[in-house]
């Protein structure tokens, strides 16, 4: 029994919840809850003792948590893609997955914000952040955009679920799509608009992040689908849908790779930024392997091969899953290189000269993730899982009719 044969699937007969009875369900729920708890405890530990207990310092103020948070924030807008394909671009094959896509988008964004907000030096001042706005700051605009994203996607999901509101559904779907582009642009512009460091300040950052959101978001969504299939015994998507997803992922991964390549080539071309590019692409330290092997190989080339080369024995689903895992790993690596790699390169106060000081001018910033940061980052990913598991348990989001005892 396939899901794509369900009609537009807005009525309750076409959607169901997770049964929530199996041991595996409770184990997974417990697992996610425990690690969200650990994430919160880590944040409390960092807040109580001060950030000296982390690996972040005055030279490298943003570390692993920020790389993971930005990854999740970028992927969240992309996870909404499937819903947009169904509603905005009227691709009927994707419509049954629209509700799950909307919840995934919100869950992934919540995970990203969890990490970001709990790492703040004064996380208790969240209310201050929500009531004092400096609109020249892209961070501040992002606060508006992220909150708006939650509001719009909640409305969008409600529209999808409430048959009486069908006539108003398309404008909301369209707004969600436009807003999602704005959110990703905002996230990319955090780095694109910063003029202080050679790694940043580039107009290609925003489009690059949009391309990345497409590939990372779809990859996250496919992993979620795979887990639902393996864990909850959900029926597989139809062969036709699987093939379309394969082509989609391949295209998105290729476009992302293109953007990243163009960014680095352009940067390398200017003598001003060549030192930085040498550092990131061929220097000592962890960044070149993360860029080439992490993002380049695991995150782009291998997934493309897996998706496009017709290995006869390997099914489409396995390809999709393996490629998605690679893309996700590559995405985190890329964010780490962009953020941490970018900050660790010394600021060029006197171009052409060699500088040194007691404040580590001219020196490469040292950073290695500490245990609280690792727990916090993993807590964010766990929150994604927790929200998904609970959301699917109480709301009718999964396409198809409930069989006896899944």
């Amino acid at each position, binding site marked *: 029994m396939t899901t794509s044969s369900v009609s537009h699937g807005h009525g309750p007969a076409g959607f169901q919840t997770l049964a929530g009875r199996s041991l595996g369900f409770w184990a997974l729920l417990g697992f996610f809850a425990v690690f969200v708890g650990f994430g919160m405890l880590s944040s409390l530990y960092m807040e109580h003792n001060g950030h000296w207990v982390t690996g972040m310092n005055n030279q490298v103020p943003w570390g692993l948590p920020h790389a993971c948070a930005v990854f999740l924030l970028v992927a969240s807008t992309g996870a909404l893609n499937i819903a947009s394909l169904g509603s905005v671009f009227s691709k009927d094959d994707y419509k049954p997955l629209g509700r799950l896509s909307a919840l995934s988008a919100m869950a992934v964004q919540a995970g990203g914000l969890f990490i970001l907000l709990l790492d703040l030096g004064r996380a208790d001042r969240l209310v201050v952040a929500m009531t*004092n706005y400096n609109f020249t700051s892209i961070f501040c605009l992002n606060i508006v955009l992220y909150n708006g994203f939650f509001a719009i996607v909640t409305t969008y999901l409600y529209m999808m679920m409430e048959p009486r509101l069908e006539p108003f559904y398309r404008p909301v779907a369209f707004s969600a799509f436009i807003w999602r582009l704005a959110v990703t642009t905002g996230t990319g512009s955090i780095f694109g608009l910063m003029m202080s460091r050679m790694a940043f300040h580039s107009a290609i950052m925003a489009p690059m992040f949009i391309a990345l959101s497409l590939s990372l978001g779809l990859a996250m969504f496919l992993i979620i689908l795979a887990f639902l299939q393996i864990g909850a015994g959900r029926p597989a998507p139809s062969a036709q849908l699987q093939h379309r997803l394969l082509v989609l992922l391949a295209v998105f991964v290729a476009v992302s790779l293109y953007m990243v390549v163009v960014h680095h080539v352009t940067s390398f071309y200017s003598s001003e930024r060549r030192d930085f590019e040498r550092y990131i692409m061929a220097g000592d330290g962890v960044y070149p392997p993360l860029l080439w092997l992490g993002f380049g190989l695991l995150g782009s080339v291998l997934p493309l091969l897996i998706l496009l080369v017709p290995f006869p024995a390997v099914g489409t689903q396995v390809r999709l899953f393996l490629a998605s895992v690679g893309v996700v790993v590559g995405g985190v690596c890329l964010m780490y290189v962009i953020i941490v790699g970018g900050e660790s390169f010394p600021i060029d106060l006197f171009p052409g000269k060699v500088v040194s*000081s007691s404040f580590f001018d001219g020196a490469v910033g040292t950073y290695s993730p500490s245990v609280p940061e690792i727990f916090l980052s993993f807590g964010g990913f766990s929150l994604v899982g927790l929200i998904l598991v609970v959301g699917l348990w109480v709301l009718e989001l999964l396409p198809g009719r409930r069989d006896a005892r899944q």
Partner: protein
Amino acid sequence: MSDSLDFSRRGLLAGAAAFAAATIAPGVLLYAQPAPQKASAKSRWGILIDVNQCDAGCDGCVKACADEFGLTSFGRPTTDPQWIRKLTVSDPETGNSHSFPVMCQHCKHPPCVDVCPTGASFIRADGIVLVDRHLCIGCRYCMMACPYKARNFVHENLKDQKSYAPRGKGTVESCTMCVHRIDDGRKPACVEACSATGRAAMLFGDLNDPNSEIAKRVAAVSTTQIRADLRTDPAIRYQGI
């Protein structure tokens, strides 16, 4: 029956509306008070640093700043606060080398102010760039955005802060050009310490006041700003780089 209930309900609602209106109206009038002004755009405080007078072995300015603000080391150099540092700049091709202090440049177009989400990082009317620690949420975006790496994050619990310079865990800080001294008509601690050594490499004053010594000197000699190409227009100028 329903009439009497309606009466009490109406009475309640009328009373509620009446006192709501009475209480809000005076508040609206009383809140519109302008803040008193002392720091004004008429001045622009700046420091001129004569690199030729600055001795590589001297760090009087750094010590004075640390004393003035109680910036103690915790034995962890990467997270310890340092608002001013002695930068050693050498030319790899000629072998020439200088040393001079670098601190928050108090730019006229500060990138840190642009990127602060809450507006905690702000530029005062007289050009001093400060952090309003009541608004700072500790996101460290300004630290990323500063082209001079001038900002510090407080990584530890602090005690016994100076009463004129409150600073606390989880907020970002940087050189304030000793704003508490300037407001009192005195000079920044680093400038005073430098004068005390006899070298007088640092000169403080009002760049907007044509009669001030600093204004006359920057008109007379050639001075540069660090990364002038970024057009941040710092208030700290250097002579002899």
